[in-house]
């Protein structure tokens, strides 16, 4: 209460969250007037998001100390606790800054007559944002779970915006199911964490001393619960279904922001609430993270639907972040603080970067879908001419996600690799053999991600339009462009000034593992460990690149200009070419499909040589779905069937069950 009376960042944050809820509620006032909802309320929400980002940034300044407050809400003896520290400040900064871009885009994106009424959508959207902020601010298990479930429910309604389509309802159900299974694990985790004191505040959990076995149980439950939300393999099945089902701004929010709340939760539990644990926690997280990263990258390479491709790419990026967290846990268990801080910084910066470039790409697919009505890569192509703005901005996002310098994706992947390459100092022979393997997998994943992005960008924007309808495609509107530019700017700025990001993240690592990663003496160079090992300067590289490109341009103009001639390209002696003959998404992914054949479950239909109308089709599905989920579902069904006799249909019999149970329990008590 005391913190609410004065103007502190925490108090301002709480008012901003209330403002989000208010904006959402205002959407119901005239829920069908798109002008009111989209042109006024969504930009207002974006302004609030900027405020949230600003307050989060304040929490990351050097002289900030953690603030906590009690909210006059909740149950009589169980008030809500909130707390703002460096970790929550960082994730609020992420939520606010990326959320602002998405909201501005959404203001231009949502139209009349697409499923849910715009006003209702506005309510669900802003409740979703507010609940994510509350998850990050919560300081007791009760508020955390309330906010966590609100987040799951509001996003469920957002996913099922077009609920008239059965496959979207199915995707929504799967998402809700996995969200609840994960939440159940979290509930159990908090039940273990209080350590018998029955105090549900995080403060009490920090102070609780757990037996090592129970601490491990809590950690594994947290990894399961948060992993289910983050899309960790094998709990990822909902992600490639739910992300494509949602409208693009919602996919962007889920992928960029909601997955990060799971990362936040995992960090909060494993590094803040739990004390130093055994090294196998880290190894487990590392292994699952690397597996997730590789799995996501391989599957992304063979997708033919652009949003599914991005969803698998999200799985890949979450895997990289988890790998960084795993490495940090390993290092912390051996008290190697600097390396732990480096790995953690890499994971955090990657989380931030992913929020920017993934939302940028999801929003770009939204613009493409609005312009063309197509989601399948096989029916797109050549859009760079029709949609120059979207194409240009999507290019920045694609380069960033592929991990190319001088953009932000490179920074975090470079830091992650640095962390992996520094670990031969671990005093454990087995780990010393395992960790370099991790570096190899990270490199492979990064390379595959590049491959995926070439496919994504090339098939959508380059080449010739594969369908005649694409020639009528139009570029994105002004608000949509503004949102995309904001996100692209984030990608570029972090790429050029990585040392600033490292400084900011240093506040978080200082509070979690007790040290920061210095970026070196020079303000322009980033030297995480030692200058004789590795350094990187985004700005110099950027300037160098500009110089080379500029010089090439000038030289070409000087010496080559005037000798241009336009001719049709050589057609290999076959003059009847159509745009359908271009390389397709399936064709581009074919080498990966062959190389990693056993990973997929493939159903292929090859045409016979004698076919007059040859058709080729390939259906790629997840092995986990058939090996794990369907058997589990069948088992559940069988158990349910064998218990069906209990349902006799007679009400008295049902009541008799309760009566007999009551008597039995009473006898037991006695």
């Amino acid at each position, binding site marked *: 209460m005391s913190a609410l009376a004065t103007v502190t960042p925490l108090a301002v944050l709480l008012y901003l969250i209330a403002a989000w809820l208010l904006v959402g509620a205002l959407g119901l006032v005239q829920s069908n007037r798109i002008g009111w909802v989209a042109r006024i309320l969504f930009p207002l929400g974006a302004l609030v998001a900027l405020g949230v980002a600003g307050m989060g940034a304040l929490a990351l300044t050097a002289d900030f100390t953690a603030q906590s407050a009690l909210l006059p809400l909740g149950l009589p003896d169980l008030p809500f606790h909130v707390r703002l520290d460096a970790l929550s400040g960082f994730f609020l900064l992420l939520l606010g800054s990326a959320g602002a871009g998405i909201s501005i885009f959404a203001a231009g994106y949502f139209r009349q007559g697409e499923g849910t009424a715009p006003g209702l959508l506005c309510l669900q959207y802003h409740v979703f944002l507010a609940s994510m902020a509350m998850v990050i601010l919560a300081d007791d298990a009760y508020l955390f779970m309330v906010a966590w479930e609100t987040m799951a429910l509001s996003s469920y309604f957002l996913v099922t915006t077009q609920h008239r389509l059965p496959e979207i309802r199915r995707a929504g159900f799967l998402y809700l199911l996995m969200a609840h299974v994960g939440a159940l694990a979290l509930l159990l985790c908090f039940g273990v964490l209080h350590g018998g004191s029955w105090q549900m505040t995080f403060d009490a959990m920090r102070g609780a001393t757990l037996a090592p076995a129970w601490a491990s149980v809590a950690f594994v439950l947290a990894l399961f619960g948060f992993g289910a939300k983050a899309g960790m393999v094998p709990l990822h099945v909902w992600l490639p279904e739910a992300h494509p089902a949602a409208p693009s701004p919602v996919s962007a929010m889920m992928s960029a922001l909601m997955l990060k709340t799971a990362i936040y939760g995992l960090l909060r539990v494993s590094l803040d609430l739990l004390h130093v644990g055994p090294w196998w926690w880290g190894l487990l997280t590392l292994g699952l993270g690397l597996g997730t990263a590789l799995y996501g990258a391989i599957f992304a390479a063979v997708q033919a639907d652009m949003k599914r491709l991005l969803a698998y790419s999200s799985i890949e990026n979450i895997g990289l972040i988890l790998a960084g967290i795993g490495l940090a846990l390993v290092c912390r268990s051996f008290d190697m603080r600097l390396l732990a801080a480096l790995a953690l910084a890499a994971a955090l910066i990657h989380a931030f970067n992913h929020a920017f470039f993934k939302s940028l790409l999801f929003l770009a697919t939204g613009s493409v879908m609005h312009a063309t009505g197509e989601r399948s890569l096989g029916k797109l192509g050549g859009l760079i001419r029709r949609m120059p703005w979207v194409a240009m901005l999507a290019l920045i996002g694609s380069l960033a996600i592929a991990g190319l310098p001088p953009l932000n994706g490179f920074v975090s992947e470079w830091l992650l690799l640095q962390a992996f390459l520094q670990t031969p100092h671990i005093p454990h022979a087995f780990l010393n053999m395992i960790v370099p393997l991790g570096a190899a997998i990270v490199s492979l994943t990064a390379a595959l991600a590049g491959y995926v992005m070439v496919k994504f960008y090339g098939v959508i924007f380059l080449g010739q339009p594969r369908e005649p309808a694409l020639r009528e495609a139009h570029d994105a509107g002004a608000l949509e462009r503004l949102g995309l530019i904001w996100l692209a700017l984030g990608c570029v700025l972090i790429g050029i000034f990585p040392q600033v990001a490292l400084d900011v993240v240093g506040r978080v690592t200082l509070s979690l593992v007790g040290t920061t990663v210095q970026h070196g003496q020079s303000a322009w160079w980033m030297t995480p460990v030692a200058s004789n090992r590795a350094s990187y300067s985004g700005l110099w590289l950027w300037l160098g690149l500009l110089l080379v490109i500029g010089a090439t341009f000038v030289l070409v103009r000087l010496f080559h200009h005037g000798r241009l001639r336009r001719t049709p390209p050589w057609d290999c002696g076959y003059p009847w070419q159509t745009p359908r003959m271009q390389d397709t998404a399936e064709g581009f992914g074919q080498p990966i499909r062959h190389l990693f054949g056993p990973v997929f479950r493939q159903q292929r239909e090859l045409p016979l040589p004698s076919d007059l109308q040859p058709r080729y089709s390939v259906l790629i599905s997840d092995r986990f779905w058939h090996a794990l989920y369907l058997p589990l579902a069948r088992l559940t069904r069988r158990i349910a069937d064998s218990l069906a006799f209990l349902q*006799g*249909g007679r009400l008295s019999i049902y009541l008799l069950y*309760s009566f007999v149970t*009551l008597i039995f329990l009473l006898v037991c008590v*006695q």
Partner: protein
Amino acid sequence: MATMNLATQLLQMLAGALLLISFAMLAERRSRRLVTLLVWQGVVLVASTALVAATAHQSHLYYSAALTLLLKVGLLPWILLRLMRKLGIERDNEPLVNVPTLMLVGLVLVIFAFGLAQPVSALATTIIRRTLGIALAVVLLAFLMILARRKAFTQVIGFLALENGLFFAATSTTYGMPLVVELGIALDLLVGVFIFGIFFFQISEQFDSLDLQHLESLKED
């Protein structure tokens, strides 16, 4: 000391009356009389709560007595009678088990409840601790009544009687629940009865009767 004794005796008499009313409900077949019995049970409950409040100087119990009076003697019976008139319920059919057997089972339950309550009563410090057994018996008898009846309407009355027993148990062992909880339960009851009312209309519209045997046809094969 003398007043104390008088109060205790009075309370035990009221508890006995509660049990008697429960048995009467078990045997009663007419819906209107069942509502009357429910009102009587409420009156006894109000009297006993007020008495406990006076002797133990627990002022919050006065509020719960007033609440009980308002809800269980006034509002709920009125709603039930209105429902009866609208739906044209006059009498329940034969119970699933005949009345003498039901009485015998009820007796066994009362003995069971007293046996169960004995160790708990020994621990309780309140003035009417011996009545816990009766409270438990009232709960079990009400449950038995729900079990043995066919009509939804009677079952709702059983449900309300069950709640009366729980309320009595709470007053007799711990001087009642916290007022917040009590208010919550009262609201639950009220809402519950409203919802039951809606269900009655639905059921009687679907099957032209409130006999729950018709619901068996809903079972999924």
